[in-house]
């Protein structure tokens, strides 16, 4: 199963009354089924918020979001969990501090009535480059990158067709990042997964994505093909600045 994503006039405000702040004034973009779509831009511009809206973790938004042609609001919660999963930006916050890895990974299997818990857990732990003895650890007994890999494993274990990835590899050393990115590429080839991936690393966008959106202050300034990075073919001034800075950052400063 594959899932295209269509986002129209997505807007959201936080706070009430006069203190309310519109964080996304009206975001529109679409992602094809099987595409890897990048979301880059200014820190605080609303990238994580867009992912939280798609996954319905935040549900008081306006506009429309469809996945596979269906209104995301109309999809029952359990079905939504099989359809899409999210990997959060900060792994410590997203894992329950008093839940072992076993509980974290087996809970969703139980809820969805899947068999062979032990086998599925071992496979997914291996896929993210950890060993089976991590199954009995707690979050505080793992390094930042190990926690992040558990968070990725949790997202993968239900085999969703849409993955929302919020800086999935920024807490990992580049060798582990390479393993995770190779895994994501392979899963996409094998299962036709769709990815929306937030990252600050344009080399990762260039390596993984087909197209990407550049966000600034709640708005999508421009959607570009990944080929626009090398040589900086952006037209919006902020997108040009960001790509220019990244090219400079990667070369000698």
């Amino acid at each position, binding site marked *: 199963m594959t899932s295209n994503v269509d986002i129209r006039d997505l807007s959201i405000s*936080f706070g009430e009354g006069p203190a309310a*702040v519109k964080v996304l004034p009206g975001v529109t973009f679409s992602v094809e089924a099987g595409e890897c779509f990048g979301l*880059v*831009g*200014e*820190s*605080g511009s609303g990238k*994580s918020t867009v992912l939280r809206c798609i996954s319905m973790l935040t549900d008081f938004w306006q506009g429309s979001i469809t996945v596979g042609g269906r209104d995301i609001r109309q999809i029952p919660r359990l079905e939504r969990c099989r359809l899409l999963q999210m990997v959060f*930006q*900060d*792994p*410590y*916050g997203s894992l329950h501090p008093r839940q072992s890895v076993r509980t974290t990974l087996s809970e969703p299997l139980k809820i969805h009535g899947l068999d062979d818990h032990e086998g599925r857990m071992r496979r997914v732990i291996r896929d993210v480059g950890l060993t089976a003895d991590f199954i009995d650890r707690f979050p505080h*007994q*793992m*390094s*930042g*990158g*190990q926690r992040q*890999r558990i968070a990725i494993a949790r997202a993968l274990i239900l085999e969703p067709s849409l993955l929302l990835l*919020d*800086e999935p590899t*920024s*807490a*990992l*050393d*580049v*060798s*582990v*990042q*390479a*393993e995770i*990115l*190779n895994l994501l*590429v392979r899963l996409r080839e094998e299962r036709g997964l769709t990815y929306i991936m937030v990252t*600050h*690393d*344009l*080399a*990762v966008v*260039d*390596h993984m994505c087909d197209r990407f959106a550049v966000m600034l*202050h709640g708005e999508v300034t421009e959607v570009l093909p990944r080929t626009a*990075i*090398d040589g900086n073919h952006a037209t919006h001034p902020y997108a040009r*600045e*960001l790509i220019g*800075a*990244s*090219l400079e*950052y*990667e070369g*000698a*400063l």
Partner: protein
Amino acid sequence: MEKPVLDVRNLAIRYGGASRDAVRGVSFTLGRERLGIVGESGSGKSTVGRAILKLLPSAQITADRMQFEDIDLLKASERDMLKIRGRRMSMILQDPKYSLNPIQRVGRQVAETYMRHFPATKAEARQKTLAMLEAVKIRDPERVHDLYPHEISGGMGQRVMIAMMLLAEPDLVIADEPTSALDVTVRLQVLEILNGLVRDRGIGLIMISHDLNLVRNFCDRVLIMFDGQVVETLNAHELDRAQHPYTRGLLAAQPRIGDRRKMLSVLDRRPEWSQEIAQ
């Protein structure tokens, strides 16, 4: 050579209940410079940082020497550490939003840190806080001041931690992935602030980072860690001439803009890399 800010000899750390040391045989000195620590996820980088601040109550820490300026950290009591931590040495923790108090507005937390170290009224501390949030390029500091940790973005969290550190004016800063959630433009601005501290105030800065571009271009020297040990020490601008197979593997695994798309090269981790390194 001028007196180092920090001198660590043969540091070993074992977590309570663990069957082997998380860190062993780590030695380095830090002058008024920018020292990068790069290494495998789980290799012990954060553990080294936390041990220097003595933030590991359940772990067993041994070393031949652990000297910070005039303070023998091996002998320092928790009471001594309370006066030193945050004020004279400061660590920017890897998970900023987790290290903040979830039920207090972030601006208040920054202001309270300031008031803990300096005599100031609430209003003065608030002014200082707002100015510092602005210095770390937070748009709309007044609004962000009043948000709770779960209401700020990942990169704002990192900058709140940096603002907190800056206000205390420490002599030693251990920054654990301080800029990983920042866009490149803001990252360069924040790095320039840290640079200024080393250049103008002569602090010692330890940068723990997975970002090879950052370490190569921003740091003076770099330690490479693997499985609890330092396997190689390099001048940062010579990173590309690294000899150790782990470091070489890291450099090869980095995606680069404009590369032809292919499987990224991954490490073939060798058991002999983990064997004791002769001192």
